[in-house]
C-alpha cells in the first residue's frame, strides 16, 4: 500500500503539470513575444506610451473572452457577445449624448441592460429548450438591429468628458480599463473557485446529469451563466464607450471570434465543465502581441494572417510530434490515462459525457 501511495504522490504533480501546460505554454509565448518585440523596437516597446497602448487594448479581449468562457463553462455558446456589447455601448452613448442622462447613470443602465438581456436569453433558452446556439444567434440578430436603430450610421461622441478621461486614464502607464479587466478576471476566478454558486456552475457544466441528481438545477446554472456573460459584456461595453473616440454601429463588430479564441486557446473545452481564467487572459495577451507585431514590423495584413495561421498549425503539429517523440523515449511519466489517439477533442473532453441542454 505504501508503494501505491508513493506512486500517487509522484503522479499527482505530474498530472497537475499536464493540466497547466496550456497556461505554461501561453506564458512562454507571451514572454518570448515581449522579448522579441522589445528587441525589435530597440527597447521602446517597454517604454511608457507603448506599454500603455499595449495594455489599453488587452482589456476588451479579456472581458469578452471571459464572457464567452462563462457561457462555455456550462456548455453553452454565446454568439451575441459582439452584438450585445455594441448595443450596450450605443445605448450608453445615446443616453448620454441624446437624452442627457448623467454619465454615471447611463453607464449603470447600460451595464444593467446587458446583464438583463443575458438573463432573458438564459430564461428563454430554458423555457423553450431551443438550442442556446440558435437562441443567441437570434438575440444577436435582434441586437444588431437594435444597435442600428439606436445609432444609425452616425458616430455618437458628444458624451461625458469625465467618462472619457477615465477611459484614457493610465496612472503609471497602466490604463484603468486594463485594471478593470484584470479585476473582473480576478473576481471571476475567485467566484468560480471559491464560492458555492461558482462551484455549482462548474459542476453543471462538467456533468449536467450528475449535477441535477445532486440537487443542482442545471436550468438555473444556464440562466446564471448567461447573466454573468451579459454582465461581463456590459463591462466590456463600458470600457469601450469610455475609451473609444465615439460609439457607432460598428462597435462590437469583431468581438465574436476573439471571444471564442481567447478561452479556447486558453484551454477551455467547448463541451463545458472547464474554466481557465488565467489562460484566457494570457491568450488575450498573445492575440494583442500579434497586433503589436503587425504595427512594429509594418506587416501587410495578408501576410500577418497567413503567418499566424501557418505558425499556429505548425506549432500544433510540431508540438504533438514532439510529445509523441518524448513518450516513445519514455520521458513522460505519470501522464493522464491515455485518451485514444486522434479523438480530435483533447483529453479534457474524453471523459466529459455529452448531454444536458446545450
Amino acid at each position, binding site marked *: 500500500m505504501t508503494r501505491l501511495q508513493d506512486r500517487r504522490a509522484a503522479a499527482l504533480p505530474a498530472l497537475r503539470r499536464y493540466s497547466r501546460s496550456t497556461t505554461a505554454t501561453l506564458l512562454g509565448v507571451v514572454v518570448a513575444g515581449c522579448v522579441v518585440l522589445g528587441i525589435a523596437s530597440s527597447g521602446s516597446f517597454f517604454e511608457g506610451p507603448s506599454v500603455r497602448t499595449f495594455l489599453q487594448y488587452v482589456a476588451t479581449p479579456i472581458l469578452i473572452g471571459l464572457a464567452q468562457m462563462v457561457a462555455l463553462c456550462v456548455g453553452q*455558446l454565446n*454568439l451575441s457577445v459582439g452584438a450585445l456589447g455594441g448595443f450596450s455601448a450605443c445605448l450608453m452613448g445615446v443616453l448620454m449624448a441624446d437624452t442627457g442622462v448623467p454619465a454615471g447613470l447611463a453607464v449603470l443602465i447600460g451595464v444593467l441592460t446587458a446583464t438583463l438581456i443575458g438573463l432573458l436569453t438564459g430564461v*428563454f433558452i430554458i423555457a*423553450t*429548450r*431551443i*438550442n442556446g*446556439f*440558435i437562441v443567441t*444567434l*437570434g*438575440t*444577436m*440578430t*435582434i*441586437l444588431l*438591429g*437594435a444597435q*442600428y*436603430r439606436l445609432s*444609425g450610421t452616425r458616430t455618437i461622441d458628444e458624451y461625458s468628458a469625465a467618462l472619457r478621461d477615465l477611459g484614457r486614464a493610465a496612472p503609471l502607464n497602466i490604463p484603468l480599463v486594463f485594471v478593470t479587466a484584470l479585476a473582473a478576471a480576478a473576481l471571476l476566478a475567485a467566484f468560480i473557485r471559491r464560492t458555492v454558486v461558482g462551484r455549482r456552475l462548474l459542476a453543471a457544466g462538467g456533468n449536467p*446529469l450528475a449535477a*441535477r441528481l445532486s440537487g443542482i438545477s442545471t436550468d438555473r446554472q444556464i440562466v446564471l451563466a448567461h447573466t454573468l456573460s451579459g454582465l461581463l459584456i456590459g463591462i466590456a461595453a463600458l470600457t469601450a464607450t469610455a475609451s473609444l473616440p465615439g460609439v457607432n454601429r460598428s462597435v462590437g463588430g469583431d468581438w465574436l*471570434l476573439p471571444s*471564442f*479564441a481567447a478561452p*479556447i*486557446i486558453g484551454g477551455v*473545452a*467547448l463541451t463545458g465543465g472547464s474554466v481557465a481564467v488565467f489562460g484566457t487572459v494570457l491568450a488575450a495577451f498573445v492575440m494583442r502581441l500579434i497586433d503589436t507585431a503587425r504595427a512594429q514590423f509594418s506587416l501587410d*495584413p*495578408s*501576410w*500577418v*494572417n*497567413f*503567418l*499566424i*495561421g*501557418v505558425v*499556429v*498549425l505548425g506549432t*500544433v*503539429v510540431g*508540438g*504533438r*510530434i514532439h510529445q509523441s517523440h518524448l513518450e516513445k523515449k519514455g520521458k513522460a511519466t505519470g501522464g493522464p490515462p491515455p*485518451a*485514444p*489517439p*486522434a*479523438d*480530435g*477533442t*483533447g483529453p479534457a473532453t*474524453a471523459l466529459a459525457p*455529452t*448531454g444536458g*441542454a*446545450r
Partner: protein
Amino acid sequence: MKTASAPRASETDRPTDGARPPHRLPFWVNQRLGLLVLIVALAAVFGLLRPAFFDERLVLFPLLRDIATLTVVALAQMVVLSVGHMNLAVGRMAAFGALFAGFGYDRLGLSLPMGLVLCLLAGCAIGALTGWIIARAGVSSFVVTLAMDFALLGLVSLLYSALTENAAFTTRPDGLTELRSASLADICLGPVCGSPAVPQIAQFTLLAVIGLGFLYTRTRMGRELLLTGANPNAAELSGIPTGRRIILAHALSGLLAALAGFMAAVGTGTFRASIGEDFMLPSFLGAVLGGTLLTGGVVSVVGALLGTALVGVIRKGLDLLGVGLESLNIYLGCVLLLALSADRVRTVVSYRKVVRST
C-alpha cells in the same frame, strides 16, 4: 439516461435521416416536418401580404438560388459537425476553391466543368489537410480550423493581389452566364417546360443532398462518421478508424465548401476574394436549425436544406414587405425565435400525447 420529464432537445429533435424514425413516435413528431410546416406557413403569410412573393422570376428564382448555395454551405458544416467537430474556415475554403476555379478559367483556359473539378479538388485537399492536422495533433478542431481560416484568409488575398488587377478573376468560360440564369424553364420535354422558379444551379445542391443522404443513411462510412462524433472513445474501441474518419469529414467539408464557393461565384459573376466571407453563421444556422447536434453524432441532410430555407424565406418576406435596415434584423431575429418557439410547443404537445397514449 433521460431524466427530464419534459422532452429534451435530443429526445425530440432526433432527425430520422440517419436512422428510421423511432417507430413509437408518430410521424408528426418529426422535427423536419415542423420546419416544413413553418416554411409553408410563413410563405403563405408573406404571399397573402405581398402576392408578389410568388413571382417566379423575380422572387422565387433568386430565393431558391440563394437557398441552394447556402444549403451546400450548411452541409459543409454539417459534415464536420457529424464527427463532433467544427469548421470555422468554411467561408475561406470556399474562397480558396473559387480561387482555383477562377485561376483555371483565367489563366489555364479551362472549360466550365474542368474548372469546377479543379475547384473541388482544391477544396477537398485543403479540407483533408485540416483533418489530417486535427487527427494527427489531437487538438480541438476549433483551434485548428481557426488557424486554417487565418492562413487561408492571408493566402487567398495574397494570391488575388499577386494574380489579378482588381482582386477578382473576371474571365468567364462558356456556359457560366447560362448556368447563372438558367432555370428549369430552359429544359423542355416536348411542349412541357419546367418552372422558371427553379434555378438550374440547384442541381449541385440536389446532388450534394442525395449524395450525403446516401452516405449517412446507407453506407458504412456515414455510420462510422456519426459514431465517431457520438463518442470518439467508444468508436475507437469498436474498431472504427476514427482518425481516418475525421480526415474524411474534413475533406468532404472542404469539397462542399468549395462547391458553395463556386456556386456563389457563378451567382454573382466573378471569382473574387470576398466569396464566402459571410458563410460562417449561415453554415451553423442551417445545420443546427435542421436538427444537427453541435456535439456530434446526429445529422440531418434534409434538415440542413429546410433550416436554410426557413431563414431564406423569412428574409425574403421581410425584404418584400419593405422593412428597412433599422427594423430588418430585429424582425428577422424575432420571427425566427417566435417561429421556433411555436414549433417547440407543437413538439411538447405531441410528446405529451404520445406519452398519454402509451
